């Protein structure tokens, strides 16, 4: 990347020359913006890797029998696809990349509370990524347990389970440290006058997420360590042959991994709450309701984990209680969706690229959320458990929710981060391709699952042929859309026209600093006198 100084009066964070030079100026930088950008690079690379695995899987499922890979390879493919997409892309995704970049700027600070710890988190992330990928090539072969590492199979298989678990442990540690850093930063470094209720909603979302990261992640940490120890020394804790209980593993696993779903989705909801006011030119409707619904989701999210285990063998009472709590999560989620829609009402909407991503998010996430109710219901869960219905549901929520907004955030903040603008027409075409491909790929999976197609199977019966073919074609359209989008951004990065300071007319603090921001963000720490979304035009109307 060659960046000239965009303005002689300041040096941007991209051009800043510190103690180190070359690649070390990045790898050893404690600047939150550089760290955010490094995360973003890593996340996009891992995303492309995960997407390629998905491509191979869909091509294998294009026709019956062995098309491209054998059954064992297919097991490894879906496991790695899950591990990479969940632990390396979606969980760090928005908080580590955009949170690092924009949290300090949006609260009017010069950096996070612990900049060196922040860099350490990034190194842990990279170490985790390297370990995860090395498990592919080392002796023993790639892990084939599915991303949930369920015992006792993960104790018995000879593949590189321990390495993959070590990777997950490192990534979890990285996530904890980022969360700890963000909580402290929000408490200690807000600009004068910025009370909690003057914080942008993205910060509220990051703050809630950070608490989940701190509270839930250690539980999976110890669970992972115990599986590794079990494999090495056979201590018996999870091994039924020695008296251990595999169901306890599932409980401990989901005590983290369900709240982790909210680690994934809350920051995306925060970004949506940023993009909507900017493009509706209207203050957000129900600011406090959205802020508190983030906390409510974070809180209720702890009490629903066993809905992943409805068919694992639990008492009916436990199943009814967990089902009830699962339905309760729909309330704060609904609060958010209705407030977003209410914000749009009578707004002067500019449907530009980031806004299109948000519209797509609301559509896809609503389908994902509503089918979640089908799965949260005990009776219908029995029918759809372990089928493609579940696969379709979590792709609608995780991909249609988090990753679509990861793309949306990228388009929203791209001019700010790089000081360059992308081609909006090409971006719009890619949005349309992604939307069509996505629904083709995953909506068919709902029908397949309802018809009884089990997940993780390498082959299928002839009656599923047509839908599998449609699904695979959807996948190709989706991948084409994503590649077009990445190409467009890459071109903009190289030689896009220079972006102005505030291309969208946003009013949060990041739009008051130059694009790209200077090293220390602000010449003078701003003093905050009003809420985050007060648009000049709207004031008169009020």
């Amino acid at each position: 990347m060659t960046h000239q100084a965009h303005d002689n009066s300041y040096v941007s964070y991209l051009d800043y020359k510190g103690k180190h030079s070359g690649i070390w100026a990045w790898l050893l930088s404690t600047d939150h913006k550089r760290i955010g950008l490094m995360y973003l690079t890593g996340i996009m690379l891992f995303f492309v890797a995960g997407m390629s695995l998905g491509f191979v899987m869909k091509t294998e499922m294009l026709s019956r029998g062995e098309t491209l890979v054998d059954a064992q390879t297919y097991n490894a493919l879906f496991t790695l696809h899950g591990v990479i997409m969940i632990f390396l892309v979606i969980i760090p995704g928005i908080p580590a990349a955009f949170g690092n970049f924009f949290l300090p700027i949006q609260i009017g600070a010069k950096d996070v509370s612990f900049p060196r710890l922040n860099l350490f988190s990034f190194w842990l992330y990279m170490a985790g990524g390297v370990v995860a990928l090395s498990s592919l090539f080392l002796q023993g072969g790639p892990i084939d347990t599915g991303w949930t590492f369920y015992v006792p199979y993960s104790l018995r298989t000879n593949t590189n389970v321990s390495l993959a678990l070590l990777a997950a442990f490192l990534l979890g540690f990285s996530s904890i440290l980022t969360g700890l850093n963000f909580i402290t930063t929000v408490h200690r470094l807000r600009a004068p006058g910025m009370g909690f209720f003057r914080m942008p909603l993205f910060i509220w979302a990051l703050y809630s997420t950070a608490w989940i990261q701190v509270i839930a992640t250690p539980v999976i940490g110890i669970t992972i360590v115990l599986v590794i120890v079990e494999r090495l020394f056979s201590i018996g804790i999870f091994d039924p042959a020695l008296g251990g209980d595999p169901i306890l593993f599932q409980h401990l696993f989901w005590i983290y991994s369900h709240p982790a779903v909210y680690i994934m989705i809350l920051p995306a909801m925060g970004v949506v709450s940023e993009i909507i006011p900017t493009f509706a030119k209207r203050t957000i409707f129900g600011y406090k309701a959205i802020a508190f619904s983030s906390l409510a989701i974070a809180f209720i999210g702890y009490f629903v984990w066993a809905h992943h285990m409805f068919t694992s063998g639990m008492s009916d009472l436990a199943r009814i209680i967990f089902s009830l709590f699962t339905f309760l999560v729909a309330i704060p989620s609904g609060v958010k969706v209705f407030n977003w829609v209410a914000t749009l009402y009578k707004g002067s909407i500019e449907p530009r690229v980031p806004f299109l991503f948000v519209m797509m998010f609301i559509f896809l996430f609503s389908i994902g959320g509503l089918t979640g109710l089908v799965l949260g219901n005990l009776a219908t869960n029995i029918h759809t458990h372990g089928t493609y219905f579940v696969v379709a549901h979590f792709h609608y929520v995780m991909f249609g929710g988090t990753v679509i907004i990861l793309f949306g955030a990228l388009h929203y903040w791209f001019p700010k981060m790089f000081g360059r603008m992308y081609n909006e027409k090409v971006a719009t075409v890619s949005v349309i391709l992604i939307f069509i491909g996505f629904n083709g790929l995953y909506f068919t999976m709902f029908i397949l699952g309802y018809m009884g197609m089990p997940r993780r199977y390498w082959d299928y019966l002839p009656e599923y042929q047509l839908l599998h073919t449609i699904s695979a074609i959807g996948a190709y359209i989706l991948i084409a859309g994503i590649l077009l989008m990445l190409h467009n951004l890459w071109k903009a990065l190289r030689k896009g026209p220079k972006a102005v300071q505030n291309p969208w007319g946003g009013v949060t603090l990041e739009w008051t600093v130059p694009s790209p921001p200077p090293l220390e963000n602000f010449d003078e720490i701003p003093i905050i006198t009003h809420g985050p979304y007060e648009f000049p035009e709207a004031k008169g109307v009020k």
Partner: protein
Amino acid sequence: MREATYNEQVTDGTMNIKETNPISHAVSEPHPHVHRDDIGSKLGMWLFLFTEILLFGGLFILYMAYRFQYSEAFHIAARDLNVNIGTLNTIILLTSSLTMALSIAAIQKGKRILSMTLIASTIAFAAAFMVNKYFEWGAKFAHGIYPGSSHLLEKEKGEIIFFGLYYSMTGLHGIHVMVGIILLSIMFVSVWRGKTNPDKFIILENSGLYWHLVDLIWIFLFPLFYLIH
């Protein structure tokens, strides 16, 4: 309000502390990384300790579930543990927490040598704990009680789980003690070189918090494994 109590605590030590408001610092300092925020550091440390408790929390939940499932076997297996060594180690760790706290008080009063002596004795206690642990585990191993041993596999499933938990929990705790020894050795050097001084001792305080947590976890491990029969 928290700030007030913090400043009180500092002025008790009769020295001047620099302004701790992070915002005024961020404005006056030319570089953001130089800024100092002792309350922020402590907040971060408490959050970290919180995650440590949850890390052990997973193990405590497993202990509870298995104790419920195999209460009789746990009762029998616990009799194989040496209460004397356990008690001795409890006393050692509690005393080390005292010397740790005193070393912070000493540096606040500007008594550098005393503080170093107290840190050194904390390290010595920690080492003594590990030596005892070594003999305790060594004796178990000599009797053929270790994970995967043929002697243990002949026993009841509940007893296998008991020793599985015993080795994992005290083992993880032991790792924390060793990390503590490294951390306190760094603190010793830091006080020696004057990097930790009466004006700036937040790292020593945070190390102390860590050490107390290690102590606290042992306070729960000791009765659960040694005393409840």
